[in-house]
């Protein structure tokens, strides 16, 4: 706007402007101002949407990265040792610590304070039961949620999950300094579990890494190779040219196919025909390679088309073979764009859930896969499974899993950006 004022003071203006021209100028400038405002509004809106999403996820999920642990000193007497099963034995041993607990209902209440499954396993593993036994176990999801302030103790007792007695027990433990809040290592080190307090992402993280690596190993060479061939070697005229164009249209269509279709294809081909087992990363990787392929071809093709033809032409005119012209001059300039396309493909594969549904990866797996033939889940599937579970603590865990997925994505994108920058710099030198 300051520019307009400067112009209005110059004498030339009076000489060459007419009222009609002034009006047109004003209109054009107003149009530009309006467009700027639209643009700013659009950017503000997308930033607000992103911020809202991130804030809601982080505010629910952040507390899952720490967890409460309880230290207990138990004495297992001969009498408790004779109990019919492990849970009962644990309940009896706990009753010694917490005071009189006789009926089934209070036993159940008591077992809900600490992670009963971890404690029973520890109790079973303990060698010498005549000596006092120190157990360091995770607090139960209920205790953990209460201590993190997610359960309001001021509500009437029947409107919250935790009972008054459990609150008293927890307060007593806390007063003795037996409750500690620590970093939740288990969230990354443990495989999945039905107990929120010991459920982890290890199986899903390894599964996802294997799937993405297998998919990239297959789709990257094939996709980039196909794009280079279609761009520089495939016939462009006559019947061959028509065939090439038809191929390109089909590849574009393939990119628009809903991803669940690839899952169905994977089910029919890899599992039913080749007889590979369900829920293994190998099949997941094969299916997602098919999914990544068109994305990579299209992005690589676009970045190849952006390289001026004159470059190849001058190389050819100086006597380079077609192969030399393409690989020494055309491809290196297109490489950053190809890289971006590949990374988008990989990120897409990492976040894909629908095709994995069909090949049995929406599964509960309690082991960390050590090869692509072992059962595993993937990160997005784990989020889906956790967010659908009943206990309140899963909401927090699911958000933490989303944060982890976002971090992995940022990591992959970061590597891509660094690689791209380096490539571009090298070309400039």
């Amino acid at each position, binding site marked *: 706007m300051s520019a307009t004022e400067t112009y209005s003071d110059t004498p030339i203006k009076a000489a060459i402007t007419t009222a009609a021209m002034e009006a047109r100028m004003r209109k054009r400038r107003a149009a530009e101002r309006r467009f700027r405002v639209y643009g700013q509004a659009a950017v503000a809106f997308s930033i607000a949407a992103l911020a809202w999403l991130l804030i809601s996820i982080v505010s629910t999920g952040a507390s899952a990265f720490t967890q409460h642990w309880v230290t207990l000193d138990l004495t297992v007497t001969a009498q408790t040792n004779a109990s019919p099963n492990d849970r009962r034995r644990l309940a009896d041993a706990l009753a010694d610590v917490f005071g009189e607990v006789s009926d089934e209902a209070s036993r159940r209440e008591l077992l809900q304070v600490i992670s009963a499954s971890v404690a029973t396993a520890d109790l079973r593993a303990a060698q010498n039961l005549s000596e006092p036994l120190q157990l360091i176990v995770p607090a139960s999801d209920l205790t953990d949620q209460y201590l993190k302030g997610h359960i309001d103790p001021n509500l009437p007792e029947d*409107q919250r999950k935790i009972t008054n007695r459990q609150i008293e027990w927890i307060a007593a433990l806390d007063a003795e300094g037996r409750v500690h809040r620590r970093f939740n290592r288990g969230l990354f080190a443990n495989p999945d579990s039905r107990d929120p307090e010991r459920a982890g992402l290890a199986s899903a993280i390894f599964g996802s890494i294997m799937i993405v690596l297998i998919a990239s190993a297959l789709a990257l060479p094939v996709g980039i190779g196909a794009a280079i061939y279609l761009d520089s070697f495939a016939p462009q005229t006559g019947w061959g040219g028509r065939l090439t164009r038809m191929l390109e249209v089909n590849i574009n269509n393939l990119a628009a196919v809903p991803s669940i279709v690839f899952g169905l294809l994977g089910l029919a081909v890899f599992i039913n025909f080749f007889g590979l087992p*369900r829920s293994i990363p190998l099949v997941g990787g094969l299916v997602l390679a098919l999914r990544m392929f068109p994305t990579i071809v299209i992005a690589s093709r676009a970045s190849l088309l952006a390289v001026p033809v004159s470059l190849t032409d001058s190389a050819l005119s100086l006597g380079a073979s077609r192969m030399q012209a393409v690989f020494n001059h055309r491809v290196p300039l297109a490489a950053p764009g190809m890289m971006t396309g590949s990374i988008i493909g990989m990120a897409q594969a990492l976040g894909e859930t629908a095709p994995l549904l069909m090949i*049995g990866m929406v599964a509960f797996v309690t082991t960390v896969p050590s*090869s692509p033939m*072992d059962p595993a889940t993937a990160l997005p599937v784990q989020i889906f499974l956790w967010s659908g579970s009943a206990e309140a603590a899963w909401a927090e865990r699911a958000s933490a899993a989303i944060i982890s997925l976002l971090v992995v994505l940022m990591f992959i994108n970061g590597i891509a950006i660094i690689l791209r920058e380096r490539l571009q710099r090298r070309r400039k030198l």
Partner: protein
Amino acid sequence: MHDARQLVGCEKEVGLRPRSHIAAMAAAVLLSGGMSACSDGRQEPVRIVGSSTIFPFAAKTAETYAERTGVVVVVEQTGSGGGHKLFCSGHASIDATTSSRPQKPSEAALCARNGVAPVIEIRLGNDGIVLARAVGAVPMDIDPLTLYSALARELPTSGLDCTPTPNPYERWSEIDPTLPTDMITVYGPPPTSGTRDAFVETAMEAGARAFPCLAAMEKDTPNIFRSRAHDLREDGRWIDAGENDNALIRTLANAPTTLGVFGFSFLDQNTDKVRGIAMGGVLPSQETIRNKSYPVVRDLFLYLRGGSALWADRGAADYVLEFTSEEASGPGGYLEEIGLIPLSDAERAEMRQRVERAKANAGPRP
């Protein structure tokens, strides 16, 4: 359990060196489907597919069983129908399917055609289908007839004239003046769900039978009766909610005039947000569902592939034994804690016997 030890050993060795994961992976990619060294001699995991209602129970049992024996159990959530389809397709790696309804004759035929035989039916426990509202809402007490009148797409013109008329009711109080004046809005499972099947087969059919002409129709033309009883309103009074019951519970908590239909275990885990609605004067609880005084109950099933496919040492039969053990699905067991309602003592003993017999008849490892 010699396989188990082998497996755990392998797991530990690899688990300590994350780099070998990558190596194993690279090897497998190169061989395109080749096994890594660790997979050699390892037994296939036990694979269970099926109902999403039973998924939490099956998964919890899988975890406990794996912890005790080291045998890997993979539990897949495919829905009851999807589970039967996969199980009966004869895919060798699937050992059992869970189902929140009995196997249909068509599915049994599919199993027989694909050589999946014998199929051993195990009942795991009971489940109630509950109607619930937000904690603060006015308590309601409805009977199947009221429910049918509120939700059926077409109602009989009168008790004796079964000419269908579109359901006219907008508010609960129009059906029964003692009920609140809230608009009828009920969220429930979609038609693909086993819970939906059980809901229409128990609650809605019971309500329909209260009309004498529909009861007569059930005897003469059962097919027409079934469609009259099973067709729910499509004018927005009944809303198909997704399979995600957590989202449904949040919806109910935010809209206190609405009702939701889901399995008892979800009610049990969310008593701080929603309350069950009494059906015919009986509130849903562990007790009333076990003794079947609550009218809308169903059985939860597991179908195990027996005969030569069930090798005695593979672990599938032992997994089901763990499932039916007192410590799991008995009173006070770890499955009861997450909402499974135990069968009676005699029934549980019978189910255990059935698995034992299947295990004894199992074929040798081929």
